[in-house]
C-alpha cells in the first residue's frame, strides 16, 4: 500500500503565485519569448518534488520510507529524522550514503537518485523530516511531512507483502548480525537475525565529534544517577563520610566524594578496556561467588569498624587494620578509591543503555580510547549527586557525641545490609533469608527492642523500643520463612501458603518465561515455535531486573501484548562460557536486555531495549514484531 504524503498546499501556493507573477512580467517585457522552459531547468524545484517521498508498510511492521530524488539533487543522511506526535524521536535505519567531499562542508553522507529509511512501528501519526540540496544551487530548509497513523491491519496483512519477497526457508546460512542484510535474508526456524542499529556512541560522534560523545555520556550519567544502579552507592558513601567522625568540613567531604566518584568512573572505563581486550563485560564476569563474597566480607569489616570504634571495642590492632579500608583517618582516600571502584563493578552491576552502547561501540570499532572515555564521562555524570552529597551532607552530620555514635551505628547496619544483600546472591535462598533474619535480630537488639522501659522513659526511648520490636518480629517472620523454604525477603512465608487453585489467582495472568542458559537451548526453543519471540536477559544479581519484574512484567498491558508470543528468559545468574556465548551471539553486553524477534526470527530494527524500559516501550517493541 502506498501513501503519498500530503503536501503543504500553502507553501506550494505561495511559490506558484510568485512564479506566475514572474512569468507575467516576462510576457510584459517581451524578453520571455519562447523561453518559458528556462525556468524549469534552472529554477530549483519544490523540495517535495525534488525529493518525492512514498511510504509503504512492509509486512515486518513499521514503515518503509522511500525518496525518489530528482537528478541534480541530493538528500543528507544525517538530517533524516522522525518523531512521534508527542515529540519522541524514532530511530531510522538508513543505508550508507555516498560520501560527498565538500571543501566547505567537510565530508557528508548524501543520497542521489533514491534513499530509503526503515522506521519502527509507532502508535499514532509520525513526523518525518528531511533536508537536501540542489547540486551547486541551493540548500532547502528541512521539510517535515506528517504521516497518518498506520493501522495495525496494513502493517501485517499478507496482501501487503511486496511482490519480490523471497520465500521462507531458503538460504539461511548467513550468520546473524550482518549489517544491513536483515531485510534481504530468509531465515529458517531456530535461527535468528539481529538488526543492525547504529549505536548511540557512533551517532553522537558522527554528529559532533569526541566532545559531543563525552558531554553526551556525562549527561546520560546524570540521568542515570537516581536509578537502582547508583542508589546503593549513596549509603556506602554516606557511611564512609559518617565514619570520618567529627570535624569534617565540606571541603574534606567533597574531596572524599570526588575520590570515590573518580574511582567509580575509572572502574567503568576499565570495563571498556577489558571489553576491548577480552570481549567480555567485566561487571558480569565479576559476579562470581569469589568476588561477590570478598566484597561482602569487606562490608562486614567496614560495619564492624563502625560499631567497633565505640561499641564493640575490638582490639586496637584490629581496629587499625580495619579502619584502613575506609573509616579511619589514615588511608581514607585509599579506602574511598577502593570502595568507589568495587561499588561500580560489583555492587550495582547495571547494564544501562549508554553502557551497552559504549561497550558495543568498542567491540565493533576497536576504538578503546573514545569508548573508555565515554564510560568515564558516564561515571562522572552518575557521580554528580554523590559529590553534592559529599560537599553538603558533611555539614549536616552531627559533630560528635551520642548522636554521632548512633549515626555510625545506623551506617554500620547499612553496611551489614549490603553484605547480606551481596551474600544473598551466592548462598542458597533460604540461607539468604536467614542472614536477613540475623541482621534484623541484631538491629532489633541494638535499637533497644529488649531494653526495659519504665514509667519515666521518654517518647524517644519508646519509639526506639517499638522499632526494635518491629525488627525482631520481622526477624522472626524471616526466620520462619527461611526454615519453611521461603526465598523472597519481601514474601518470606510464600512457602507456607497453600497453592490457591481458586478463582482469585486465575484472573492474574502471569508471564510464563521459558528459561534458557545456552545458545543450543535458545535455538531449540526458537525452533519449536513459529510465534514472534521476546528474549529477556536477566540474572539474580541484576538489580534493575527486579524493578522490571515489578513494574513491567506485572503490567496488564504488557501481559496482553506478549500473549501468544514466545517469551524466553536468558538467565545469566550462573555466569559461564555458555552465558558469554549467549551474550555474544545476541550481541548483548548483559542484563537487562530485551530482544524482539518476529515470527521469522528476525530482530526488528530499533526495538531492542537495554536497561530499564517502561511498559509502554515494551509494548511498542512488541507491536513492531507482531
Amino acid at each position, binding site marked *: 500500500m502506498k501513501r503519498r504524503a500530503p503536501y503543504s498546499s500553502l507553501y506550494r501556493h*505561495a511559490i506558484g503565485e510568485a512564479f506566475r*507573477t514572474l512569468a507575467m512580467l516576462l510576457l510584459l517585457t517581451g524578453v520571455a519569448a519562447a523561453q518559458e522552459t528556462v525556468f524549469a531547468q534552472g529554477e530549483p524545484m519544490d523540495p517535495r518534488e525534488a525529493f518525492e517521498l512514498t511510504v509503504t508498510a512492509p509486512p515486518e511492521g513499521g514503515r518503509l520510507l522511500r525518496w525518489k530524488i530528482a537528478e541534480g539533487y541530493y538528500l543528507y543522511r544525517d538530517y533524516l529524522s522522525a518523531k512521534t506526535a508527542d515529540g519522541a524521536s524514532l530511530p531510522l535505519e538508513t543505508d550508507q550514503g555516498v560520501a560527498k567531499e565538500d571543501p566547505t562542508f567537510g565530508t557528508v553522507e548524501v543520497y542521489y537518485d533514491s534513499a530509503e529509511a526503515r522506521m519502527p512501528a509507532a502508535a499514532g501519526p509520525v513526523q518525518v523530516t528531511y533536508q537536501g540540496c540542489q547540486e551547486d544551487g541551493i540548500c532547502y530548509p528541512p521539510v517535515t511531512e506528517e504521516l497518518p497513523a498506520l493501522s495495525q491491519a496494513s502493517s501485517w496483512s499478507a496482501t501487503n507483502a511486496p511482490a519480490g519477497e523471497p520465500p521462507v526457508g531458503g538460504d539461511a546460512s548467513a550468520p546473524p548480525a550482518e549489517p544491513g542484510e536483515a531485510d534481504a535474508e530468509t531465515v529458517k526456524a531456530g535461527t535468528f537475525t539481529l538488526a543492525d542499529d547504529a549505536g548511540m556512541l557512533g551517532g553522537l560522534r558522527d554528529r559532533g565529534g569526541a566532545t559531543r560523545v563525552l558531554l553526551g555520556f556525562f549527561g546520560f550519567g546524570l540521568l542515570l544517577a537516581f536509578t537502582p544502579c547508583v542508589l546503593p552507592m549513596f549509603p556506602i558513601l554516606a557511611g564512609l563520610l559518617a565514619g570520618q567522625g567529627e570535624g569534617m568540613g565540606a571541603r574534606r567531604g567533597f574531596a572524599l566524594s570526588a575520590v570515590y566518584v573518580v574511582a567509580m568512573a575509572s572502574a567503568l572505563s576499565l570495563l571498556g578496556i577489558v571489553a576491548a581486550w577480552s570481549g567480555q563485560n567485566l561487571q558480569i564476569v565479576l559476579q562470581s561467588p569469589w568476588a561477590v563474597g570478598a566484597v561482602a566480607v569487606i562490608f562486614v569489616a567496614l560495619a564492624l569498624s563502625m560499631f567497633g570504634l565505640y561499641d564493640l571495642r575490638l582490639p586496637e590492632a584490629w581496629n587499625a587494620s580495619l579502619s584502613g579500608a575506609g573509616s579511619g583517618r589514615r588511608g581514607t582516600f585509599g579506602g574511598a578509591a577502593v570502595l568507589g571502584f568495587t561499588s561500580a563493578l560489583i555492587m550495582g552491576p547495571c547494564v544501562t543503555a549508554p553502557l551497552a552502547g559504549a561497550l558495543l561501540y568498542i567491540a565493533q570499532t576497536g576504538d578503546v580510547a573514545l569508548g573508555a572515555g565515554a564510560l568515564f564521562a558516564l561515571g562522572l555524570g552518575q557521580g554528580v549527586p554523590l559529590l553534592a552529597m559529599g560537599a553538603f551532607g558533611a555539614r549536616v552530620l552531627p559533630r560528635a557525641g551520642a548522636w554521632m555514635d548512633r549515626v555510625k551505628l545506623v551506617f554500620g547496619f547499612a553496611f551489614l545490609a549490603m553484605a547480606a544483600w551481596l551474600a544473598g546472591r551466592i548462598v542458597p535462598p533460604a540461607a539468604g533469608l536467614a542472614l536477613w533474619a540475623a541482621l534484623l535480630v541484631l538491629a532489633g537488639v541494638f535499637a533497644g527492642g529488649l531494653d526495659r522501659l519504665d514509667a519515666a522513659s521518654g517518647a524517644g526511648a519508646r519509639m526506639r523500643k517499638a522499632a526494635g520490636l518491629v525488627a525482631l518480629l520481622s526477624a522472626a517472620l524471616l526466620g520462619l520463612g527461611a526454615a519453611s523454604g521461603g526465598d523472597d525477603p519481601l514474601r518470606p512465608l510464600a512457602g507456607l501458603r497453600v497453592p490457591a487453585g481458586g478463582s482469585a489467582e486465575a484472573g492474574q495472568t502471569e508471564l510464563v518465561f521459558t528459561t534458557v542458559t545456552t545458545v543450543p537451548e535458545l535455538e531449540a526453543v526458537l525452533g519449536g515455535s513459529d510465534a514472534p519471540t521476546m528474549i529477556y536477559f536477566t540474572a539474580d544479581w541484576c538489580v534493575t531486573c527486579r524493578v522490571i519484574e515489578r513494574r513491567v512484567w506485572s503490567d496488564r498491558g504488557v501481559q496482553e501484548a506478549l500473549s501468544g508470543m514466545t517469551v524466553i528468559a536468558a538467565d545469566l545468574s550462573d555466569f559461564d562460557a555458555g552465558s558469554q556465548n549467549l551474550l555474544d551471539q545476541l550481541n548483548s553486553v548483559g542484563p537487562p536486555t530485551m530482544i524482539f524477534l518476529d515470527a521469522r526470527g528476525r530482530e526488528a530494527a530499533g526495538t531492542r531495549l537495554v536497561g530499564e524500559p517502561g511498559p509502554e516501550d515494551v509494548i511498542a517493541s512488541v507491536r513492531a514484531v507482531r
Partner: protein
Amino acid sequence: MTRLNRRHLLLGGLATAGSAAGLLLFSRNGATAQDLTREDVLFDPDNPELGNPEGDVTLVEFFDYQCPYCKANHPILTDVVAADGNIRLVMKDWPIFGAPSVRAAQLALGAASLDAYETANATLMATEGRLDDALIDEALEDAGLDVADLQAAYQNDRNKWDGLIARNGRQASILGLRGTPAFIVGTALYPGAMDGEALREAIEMARS
C-alpha cells in the same frame, strides 16, 4: 554556462521592468505579502550592512552559516563587492541547518553591537565543514573575538536579533525562496549559488 546566462539575462530584464514596482511585484500572494515592502527587505534597520553602506545597489543574500554553496561562493561575493566599491551588501541570516546555524547567527549579530560584525561574519563564512558549538567558538576566538562578549551582546539585544532572524525567515517564505543561498540584487531575485560573472551581470542589470 549558457543556460545560466540566459536565465540571468531573463531575470535581469525582469529586474529592469520590475524596478519601479519594487519587490511587491514578486510577492503578490495573500495577506502577509501585502505587509512586505521593498524597504522591509532591502533596508531592514536592524540588519548589519557590509560593503559600501552608501552604495547605489543593494545586494541581499539570504544565507546560513552551514550552507555549503553560501560558504563556497562567499569569497567571490566579497571580492565582487569590494572591487565594485559601490555596493551595499546585506547578509540576511536564515538559519536552516539547525541549532549550530542559529548559534552562529546569534553570535555574529551579537558582534554587530560590538562593531565586529564584519570579522565575525567573515570568520564564520570561512569555517570548514559542519559546525558545532565548539567549532564556532574556536573559530571566533581564533579571530580575536571573545565569545562570552558576543554572547552577552546578543543576550543584551536579544529581542532585536531574534526579531530580525524571525523576520528574515518570514520574508524568505513570502518571497517564495526555496532555500539558501538566495540573492536579491536591486530588485531582482536570484535563487541559488551565483558565480562572479553572474553577480557582476546582476549588478549591471540593477544599475541599468
